[in-house]
């Protein structure tokens, strides 16, 4: 199994490298980073040339890629348009976004499995139908609408009723926040509440639908009937015989959707004005900041690859056949 994972990892690294080539080329073509500076009448020609040189804009795209790639091998992501080191900037943005994404993903998986199994077991009942309805409505609503509704029609009225900001909806922390990590934690947590809820609601619905139907399918299998007729307790049959099989397709969907969660994080951050990766990316695009954009795309791709590898491990645990393939 270890070799299997290793093989997958090597293949992913190759794909990752290919993606950097394409992404770099695409981003370079997306606009002129100095477009606004060129418009500025107070800027001397020499300064402009200096900027062009610093950003390697006088070289062709393959050469620029090579310079960037060499930097990457040394662990540098380059500098952004304002001359700041991208690595430290994106690192702090990343840890803000990860707070939300990790908690929301885990929460969404748990909710999806629990509601999906409940709906499948009580198929056709009130619970099943109301879960289905909620799932479809959530699936049919854009992320930002869910976010805005939660923010404007849930959090703000509560805040108004309470007379203070019980449910903060702007930013990932209070502006004046000091002290040790444990001291800051409650503030982080309360700021995370609404955005994480939004991202969870957006992510879990399709998984729950999937969990339900794959559970129903697994319930019909012969080995389940055998387990029942052996006289195993219903709980044991449900967990060991049905759920284990039903989880396999769900794991795939979760892995494929991870890119979607990162996309959802861009939107959620924008709704709740967080300064995470989404904000980083949107402002980089707004400023046509090539290296900042590439850095975002690279890190996203890396996360997607790691997540897919984790899924492969989960697969191998759930389905022994894969281990020996």
């Amino acid at each position: 199994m270890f070799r299997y994972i290793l093989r997958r990892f090597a293949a992913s690294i190759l794909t990752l490298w290919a993606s950097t080539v394409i992404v770099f080329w695409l981003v370079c073509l997306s606009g002129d980073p100095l477009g606004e500076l060129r418009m500025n009448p107070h800027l001397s020609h020499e300064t402009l040339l200096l900027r062009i040189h610093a950003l390697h804009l006088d070289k062709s795209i393959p050469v620029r890629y090579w310079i960037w790639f060499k930097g990457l091998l040394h662990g540098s992501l380059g500098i952004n348009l304002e001359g700041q080191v991208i690595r430290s900037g994106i690192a702090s943005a990343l840890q803000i976004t990860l707070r939300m994404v990790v908690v929301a993903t885990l929460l969404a998986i748990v909710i999806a499995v629990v509601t999906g199994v409940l709906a499948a077991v009580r198929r056709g009942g009130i619970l099943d139908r109301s879960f289905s309805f909620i799932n479809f409505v959530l699936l049919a609503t854009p992320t930002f609408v869910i976010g805005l509704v939660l923010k404007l029609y849930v959090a703000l009225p509560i805040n108004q009723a309470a007379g203070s900001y019980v449910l903060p909806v702007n930013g990932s922390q209070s502006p004046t926040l000091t002290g040790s990590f444990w001291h800051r934690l409650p503030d982080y947590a309360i700021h995370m509440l609404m955005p994480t809820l939004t991202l969870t609601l957006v992510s879990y619905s399709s998984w729950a639908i999937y969990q339900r139907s794959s559970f129903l399918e697994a319930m019909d299998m012969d080995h389940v009937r055998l387990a029942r007729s052996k006289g195993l307790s219903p709980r044991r049959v449900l967990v060991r015989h049905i759920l284990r099989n039903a989880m396999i397709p769900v794991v795939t969907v979760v892995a494929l959707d991870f890119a979607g969660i990162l996309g959802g994080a861009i939107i959620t951050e924008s709704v709740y004005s967080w300064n995470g990766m989404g904000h980083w990316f949107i402002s980089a695009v707004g400023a046509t900041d090539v290296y900042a954009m590439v850095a975002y795309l690279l890190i996203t791709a890396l996360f997607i690859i790691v997540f897919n590898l984790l899924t492969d491990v989960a697969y191998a645990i759930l389905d022994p056949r894969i281990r020996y393939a």
Partner: protein
Amino acid sequence: MLKRLLSFIIIIDLVAALISFYWPIKVFLVALVAWRVLIGAKKRRKAKREVDIVQVLGQWGQATRRFMNDRLAVLGLIVLLVIVMASLAESIFNHDGYMTLTGDYLVPPSWHHLFGTTQVGIDLFSAVMKGILVDIRVAVVVSIVTISVGTIMGAIAGYFGGKVDAVIMQIINLFLIVPGLSILIVLSNQLKTSSDTSLLLAVIVGLLGWTYVARLVRAEFLSLRTRDFVEAARALGAGRVRIIARHMLPNTMGPIVVNGTLTMAGSILLEATLSFLGLGIQPPEVSLGALLQSGQDFAQNAPWCFLFPAGILLILILSIFFVGDGLQSALDPRKARAK
């Protein structure tokens, strides 16, 4: 009869929405639909009397029957039709309504302004109806692009296998690790300056989103490849193109069509998301997403500006989902058993 009528109208409507917003063409098309339906009904009634005894239902006939037995799917189809017809009617009879300044600012919904007016005095009903048309056009173009590119790539990968398959799968993996939304955001600067943003947007979304269809078709082809009827066709000397087009593709139509409806819903949602970020469809073009984007600032003091576009968007997507669900159980009864 009703089924034929419904399916016919929706096809014509979608084509009309796709071809042009120029209203005389639409009047003509609506007249054409009415005429076809009237003539067709007479012919069919005649034909039905003749074959009543031996009722022959083909593959599609059976599928239609299954679809019609699905109440939620029929409801979705009807709602979808009503929405599309209303937006077509609005754009025919009130062609520039979405751009006309009424002089009433932020007026709540009334008989005169069904959905109220916006902060610049535009009748929201007109704007929403126009936005629906734009969104549906985006959805149709996206589906056409994803289905054609995805089917071709998937068919090639699944039929030939081996190295060709490996190369195509690698390309698909590339698309998987670079999220489509990010690429769209990167390209948004170019989009904004285009003369027909919504069309360009739709084509790009389609070119970014074909991988799912390709994987679907590939998987189906891999299992069809070794089936007896394909072997038989090959033994009879049929060429590759003929085997793919006449023997294998028809057997994958079900999943492709179902996926097409989901793609439509997804592309409308994606358009709305891009517009919310200010990167999608730009004025003077409107879309539901653009309306939501401008309406969010008034969501508390003038909730109709936000809630009407949001509600219509929800109903639109939900009805597409229900239709897709109905199609799934109609076209692929085996897989839909677990519903």
